[in-house]
């Protein structure tokens, strides 16, 4: 295992400590229990937004703490949901009296730990609502399973709900916007290479030199299907078509096209994939209103990418365009 680390057990603490110094203008970091809070939290009268989950997906979530997006992020151990304690601490830290929204990716661990924290916060008199993101079409949705994973759509939910909260909407309204974004977002990913969890020391799976995983998640979990490497355009089609069919997206729709790198993918490849995705959408009569291309929700050093489509409405566009000032997403200020 080759990593720029000192000790597998200290990776998250040391990295968050660096993040705290580098972005002291935007965030404050509390180390015990570890959570990252917007420098000016709590903001009286504003709905607080907290997200979190296992580490290894950076810039998600700490990179999205700041004006117009999250009020706090709770980083767990690598690929391990945080426990309720830091989630509760973060929830209290950002409560400005208007309630707190938890944005939770749909993984059993995240859901259970956030649930517990929400219960405890409720007992302390803080009103908490949770929105669970589950946009990954690679996983079959069913009442009898753990359901779909929350992946790329989570970033979009955090940005748009964050803007809604910043503009003073109520907890119910912010939660409704978040739900609408999640309901209109679909994603699918693939990997060229696996990743290695520091404490595991071994790659999450192995792939032959000519194989790729289709339908990969963001935790180094193997995907649904292993195929031979194909040209980029074919791979894009393989990800995009299940997405398009699922909602479904239709001619005339306006969308945000999000091409996301898994952490080890160079930009040159992401834009190349973006080109094909844009071409397919144009053929289908779908208009790209907004774009996001880069490593925004990752899986350590994994090479690969995911595509997320979000069907937009005017309100979502307005919130997407609203100013945001975080370590990883910034515009308008």
């Amino acid at each position, binding site marked *: 295992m080759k990593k720029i680390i000192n000790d597998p057990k200290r990776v998250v603490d040391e990295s968050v400590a660096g993040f705290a110094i580098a972005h002291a203008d935007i965030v404050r970091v509390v180390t015990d229990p570890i959570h990252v809070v917007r420098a000016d939290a709590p903001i009286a009268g504003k709905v607080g937004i907290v997200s979190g989950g*296992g580490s290894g997906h950076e810039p998600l979530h700490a990179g999205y703490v700041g004006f117009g997006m999250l009020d706090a992020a709770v980083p767990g*151990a690598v690929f*391990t*949901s945080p426990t309720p304690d830091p989630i509760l601490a973060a929830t209290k830290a950002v409560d400005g009296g208007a309630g707190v929204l938890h944005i939770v990716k749909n993984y059993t661990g995240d859901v259970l730990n956030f649930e517990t924290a929400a219960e405890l916060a409720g007992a302390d008199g803080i009103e908490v609502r949770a929105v669970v993101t589950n946009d990954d079409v690679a*996983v079959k949705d069913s009442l009898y399973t753990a359901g779909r994973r929350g992946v790329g759509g989570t970033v979009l939910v955090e940005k748009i709900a964050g803007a809604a909260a910043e503009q003073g909407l109520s907890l119910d309204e912010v939660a409704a916007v978040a739900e609408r974004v999640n309901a209109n977002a679909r994603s699918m990913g693939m990997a060229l290479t696996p990743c290695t*969890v520091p404490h*595991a020391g*071994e790659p999450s*799976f192995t792939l032959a030199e000519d194989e790729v995983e289709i339908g990969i998640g963001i935790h180094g979990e193997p995907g649904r299907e292993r195929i031979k490497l194909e040209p980029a355009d074919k791979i894009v089609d393989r990800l995009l078509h299940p997405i398009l069919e699922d909602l479904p997206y239709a001619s005339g729709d306006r969308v945000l096209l999000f091409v996301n790198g898994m952490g080890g993918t160079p930009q040159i490849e992401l834009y190349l994939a973006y080109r094909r995705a844009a071409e397919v959408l144009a053929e289908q009569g779908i208009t790209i209103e907004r774009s996001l291309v880069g490593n925004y929700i990752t899986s350590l050093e994994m090479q690969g990418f995911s595509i997320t489509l979000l069907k937009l409405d005017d309100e979502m566009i307005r919130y997407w365009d609203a100013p945001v000032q975080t370590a990883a997403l910034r515009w308008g200020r």
Partner: protein
Amino acid sequence: MGLDINWAVDWVRRSADVVSEHRVELINLDREIGDGDHGENMDRGFQAVLPKLDDLPAGSTPGDVLKLVATTLISTVGGAAGPLYGTAYLRASSAVGGEVSLDGNAVAALLQAGRDGIVARGKAESGDKTMVDAWTPAVDAAASAAAGGADAAAVLRAAADAAAAGAVATEPLVARKGRASYLGERSAGHRDPGAQSSALLLEAAAEAASNGTSA
């Protein structure tokens, strides 16, 4: 001969040892059908319990130990296993209440409450390829052993053996809950890491009971 606080403490120490020993094995099982952290998570949790055992006030009961395990796992493990095991130990603790010595029936009730806690939190059914598939046969075996008049140690032995068999029996299953469910059919052919850790913990309980650490 009932199981007392010494058994409970010994169970925890043995649990920490066995989880530590099998850390890499559990990580590898989880790498195959999950995200490769189960061994690390469990090890972190039980290592956090150990020092707290020393601070247990005099007169503590098995139920106090179980509660200590519950709260520590909840606040240190994270992931799916943290809340699930946490709830199991919490419910187990409630089930035995303030009793100072547990007989076969009490142990069977403890296990049943633990299993029910896992199901209440995780909503998994038997055959979903989760830790429930180790706990449910264990609970059933414990119940019939207890009904047959077995003592606490014998009840735990029956439970441990059934849990071990249950863990092995998860191998052919297709997962419907937890991270392995994302793999669909590809999850078959691998043992569920949580079922395996459950079997290890129940084995530790049985060994602690048979090892005369109880009064």
